[in-house]
């Protein structure tokens, strides 16, 4: 029996040496990201502004923001001027920071459990995690899409219950662009106006009686 186990072990380590290590690294990357957000944003006893700053730092080091911004513009990215792309990238970054910091701020601290990880044929890693939210039927499934470019891991997308954040931004913003004749400046203007509202959310309303 011991021989058999040793034999299987040898085959497994020989067959998938690189893949195993990489999947582990990608999972560790996601876990660290979740831990950092939990420590510096969700559970930090700081002001909203400080939480936004903390999240901005974590977020910008975790993603390749230029690629992210470009993807969310769809084919409009090809014709946009460089300065328009830059203005859009800044506006999108702010939008993500304000929206998600507010979400984390309201997050009751339910724990996240990492369940499995795999590498697709294209080389990207998909790390599956679950959050159990009280008084709901099912756990919420969150998949972290991690890209590996020259041994640098980056968060490319977050898929919540099958809904890709990257694709959602792209679908919505290309619809806005379509209505504005493809004018990226118009989209940036709308995003910045929205950001002004999201930056300082009005004092929270008293929670609805449960």
């Amino acid at each position: 029996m011991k021989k058999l186990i040793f034999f299987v072990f040898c085959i497994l380590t020989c067959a998938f040496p690189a893949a195993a290590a990489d999947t582990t690294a990608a999972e560790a990357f996601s876990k660290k990201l979740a831990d950092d957000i939990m420590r510096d944003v969700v559970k930090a006893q700081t002001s909203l502004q400080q939480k936004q700053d903390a999240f901005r730092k974590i977020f910008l080091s975790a993603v390749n923001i230029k690629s992210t911004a470009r993807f969310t513009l769809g084919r409009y990215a090809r014709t946009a001027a460089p300065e328009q792309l830059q203005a859009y990238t800044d506006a999108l970054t702010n939008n993500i920071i304000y929206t998600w910091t507010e979400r984390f701020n309201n997050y009751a601290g339910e724990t996240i459990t990492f369940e499995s990880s795999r590498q697709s044929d294209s080389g990207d890693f998909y790390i599956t995690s679950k959050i159990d939210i009280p008084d709901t039927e099912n756990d919420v499934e969150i998949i972290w899409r991690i890209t590996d470019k020259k041994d640098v891991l980056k968060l490319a997308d977050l898929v919540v219950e099958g809904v890709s954040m990257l694709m959602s931004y792209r679908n919505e913003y290309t619809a806005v662009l379509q209505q504005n004749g493809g004018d990226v400046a118009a989209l940036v203007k709308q995003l910045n106006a929205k950001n002004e509202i999201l930056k300082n959310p009005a004092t929270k309303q008293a929670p609805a009686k449960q």
Partner: protein
Amino acid sequence: MPGCATVPTDPAALAAYREANDPLEPMNRKIFAFNMAADKYALRPVVKGYRYVTTPGFRLKVRTFLSNLKTPLTVVNDLLQLNFKNAGKDLSRFVINSTIGFLGVFDVADRMGIEPNTQGFGTTLAVWGVPSGPYLVLPFLGPSNIRDFTGSMANVVFDPFTYISYQNDNNDVTRAFLIGDVVEAVGAYESIVDLLDEGQKTSLDFYAYMRSMFQQYRKKAIENAKGIKTAEDSKPAYEFSLDEDFDEFDE
């Protein structure tokens, strides 16, 4: 044709138009606006009242109870999808929850490791290979598509409970199931209303935001029904290619 969008000629706009799968957009946007008004003046007060008189735990029990009544419909659809494994699981869920789960108030089966599963005829059609058809916004009911709309009407035919009330020729039973459906709709709406509010608050174009959410969410439900979970089976929808845009901007 009135209510139809003009197909754009600009390549970027055409790409966005194709991705949205929404040729009826002008009509859909009008119904969407109507639904928003209906939400404000009719549905929201109902949700507020429902929340006022119940606790979150109680509301979960109501949803569990009513979804248990829909389990036979799920079993029928499992069979139509030739998914005998799920049919067995869902039938056991119904038996367990209807008995030791106090008529479905407690999801005992879930605690025993038999996870909830809901299947309608819309998903069955998708498993059979019927394409979604254009995106559709239904009055009061919200996002759908041609296939799912057809499926939801057919659900009445495939729900075993339809025949129980019909065969008994008892209006009280029919009425009870109708009330059940209304409460189920209120319960389902109540459970997502906060998500809708957040979407409305953060989005630039709430209509396009909802369309994207719905289409992606449905794709996942259909992939689940087909048993697609990993790349080995077939590629899940969220594994779209990034390369075209991601490679050019390596840092």
